[in-house]
């Protein structure tokens, strides 16, 4: 069977990509210090999940997953708006968006 036209193997590729994107996102969140990068990594994880949803939707022939993705995109847009606003605000206050300098709230 042609691996390109075989729907099952096509889906597998999508799944690998999605997992890869998600892992990159997690690593970015864990090891980067720049708050803006962390935010972008979170977006990356979100979109990895979106990709997963879409590919499963195509595989099963059920449109529910695609509908759901639209909602997630709307939420993600809102979240980015808030998150970026926070970044700007943090930068204005302390002149940096390094999360290591955001350690006042403890004990």
């Amino acid at each position, binding site marked *: 069977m042609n691996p390109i036209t075989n729907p099952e193997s096509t889906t597998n590729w999508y799944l690998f990509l999605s997992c890869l994107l998600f892992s990159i996102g997690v690593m970015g969140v864990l090891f980067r210090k720049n708050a803006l990068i962390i935010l972008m990594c979170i977006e990356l994880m979100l979109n990895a999940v979106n990709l997963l949803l879409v590919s499963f939707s195509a595989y099963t022939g059920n449109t529910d997953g695609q509908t759901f993705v639209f909602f997630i995109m709307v939420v993600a847009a809102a979240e980015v708006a808030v998150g970026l606003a926070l970044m700007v605000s943090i930068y204005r206050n302390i002149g940096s968006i390094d999360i*290591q300098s955001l*350690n006042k*709230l403890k*004990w």
Partner: protein
Amino acid sequence: MNNTMNLLTMITPAMMIPLFPLLGFLIVSLFGKKLGFMSGWIASMAILGSFLCSINLFVGLEGDQQLNFSIFKWIAAGDLQIDFGFLIDQLSLIMLLIVTGIGFLIHIYSIGYMHHDEGFSRFFSYLNLFIFFMLLLVMGNNYAVMFIGWEGVGLCSYLLIGFWFKNPEYNNAAKKAFVMNRIGDLGFLIGIFALIFHFGTLDFMDVQNQLAGFEPDAPILIFITLMLFIGATGKSAQLPLYTWLPDAMAGPTPVSALIHAATMVTAGIYMICRSNLLFALAPFTLHVILIVGVATSLFAAIIGIKQNDIKKVLAYSTVSQLGLMFAAIGLGAFESSMFHVMTHAFFKALLFLGAGSVIHAMGGEQDIRKMGGLSKSIKTTFVTFLIATLAISGIFPFAGFFSKDEILAKAFEHNLLVWALLSISSMITAFYMFRLLFLVFYGSFRGTQEQAQHLHESPISMTLPLMILAVLSAFGGFFGLPSVFSSTHQLMAFLAPIFNSSKQVTLETPPLSHEQEWLLMGIATLAALVSIYYAFTLYLKKQQIPENESELTGISKVVANKFYVDEFYHKVIVNPVVILSDLLLVLVDKLIIDMVVNLTAILVDAIGRLYRLIQTGSTGFYLIAMVLSMVIVMFIQIIL
């Protein structure tokens, strides 16, 4: 048919009787500050409304008609049904007229008396609340409604005794009255529970109907009646619970007149008369009541001789007169007791109001050793006070003569010893009342120069009630003329429907012959005159003035110190309670309860100190913790 229609139209005025004072209370207590001086008049008008409704009922109910109606179902628990209902019959009518009538006069009087007081409207709101509860007590058609009134008047009594709450001594007097009453109330409550347990109802009429099958002196009846009587001793200040009443004189004088002389303290007598068949079926309890009544009457009268505070003298005389009423109940002479309740309400209210007028003139002085010769400067007060004194001493033809004579005659029929003791008690009464009269109104003025110039007659709002009460004290006795004067005893005929059933149970002794009655009256009058003469020689001829307490010796010192009853109670009851409380404070409260509470706090504190270390403030750490936790949760889910 016409009759029942007639009765139905009575329900509205009957409901309005307690509503007026309640409304007055609400208006005066909510808007008292704005109303200012008007609040006194509003409160008085509320009582006047109740009084007019009572008269309406008094005129409307004929013969043995009674109005018994339920307003709403109040308590329904299984078989027990208690309605919130009113019973208007001849007995409650008498009490209604006394409470609202004298209550109205005392309200008017208070407008003058409390004029300068900063708590003017607060005073009137309490008075109206008191009248409301007293009316509930009197009108209730079952023991439960009566009990609300019973507790309510106790509350108002507490509030009014402690009216000048800035004085700690007055507050203590209020607390004492409240606690003493509570002891009695417990007895009353147990009696009520026993009634529910045994009869399954609290309705006066139902209980009475069920009593038909009982043998006299059944143990359960003795128990119930004794418990109810304990309630009565608390409220009506009998031995051994009387000590709160003299202390209650800390309240404003109109309060003493209304609550602690004319109305509330007679609640115990009313309650027993209301359940007369119950008590008549328990002769043993009647004996106890007789003994307590006679003992109280004598004991309080003796203490009264040596008191030097004008209000304290009247307080002990009230206790003594209440003892006389209880003695009458003990003799089975319920209607004589009610007769004395009525006349006593007239002349004792008058005496207290007169005393208030004297205190008003003296600028707050209450010590009779510092008065004297007041008859010239305050004539109206003097004349009315004299009438009341004659009435309480039992001088013909004033009100007290007839009611007291009736009780003495009943005592003579039953037992010579009781008669002799009660006669001695009324002799002593005559003595100390005239001692009071002579010391206050005759002789030379013993106060300060300043007080002498300040002496003045009270305003018309105070003297008018005095005059009305004086008329009642003078002629109130004609409601119950003894058989030598008239063939019908009006009050007895009026109350006959109430006491008919118990009359058949109690032993009827043959009535006294006319000669015997004349003799008894002669002896009583002579005895009173002798004591008056004795008081006359001591305090007018020899111009004696009571010594200071430190100069007293022997028996008179014991009497002046009220037989050390208060001290005795303090040592035997109050002190052990205080010691026990201190012990419990140290052992239970401080040691156990505080320890448990503190240990809990320490534990929470320690855990908090440990766990807060997680909050490092480093965002990276939080993120790692979050991802790790999610991974762990995922693994756990896969494994399980």
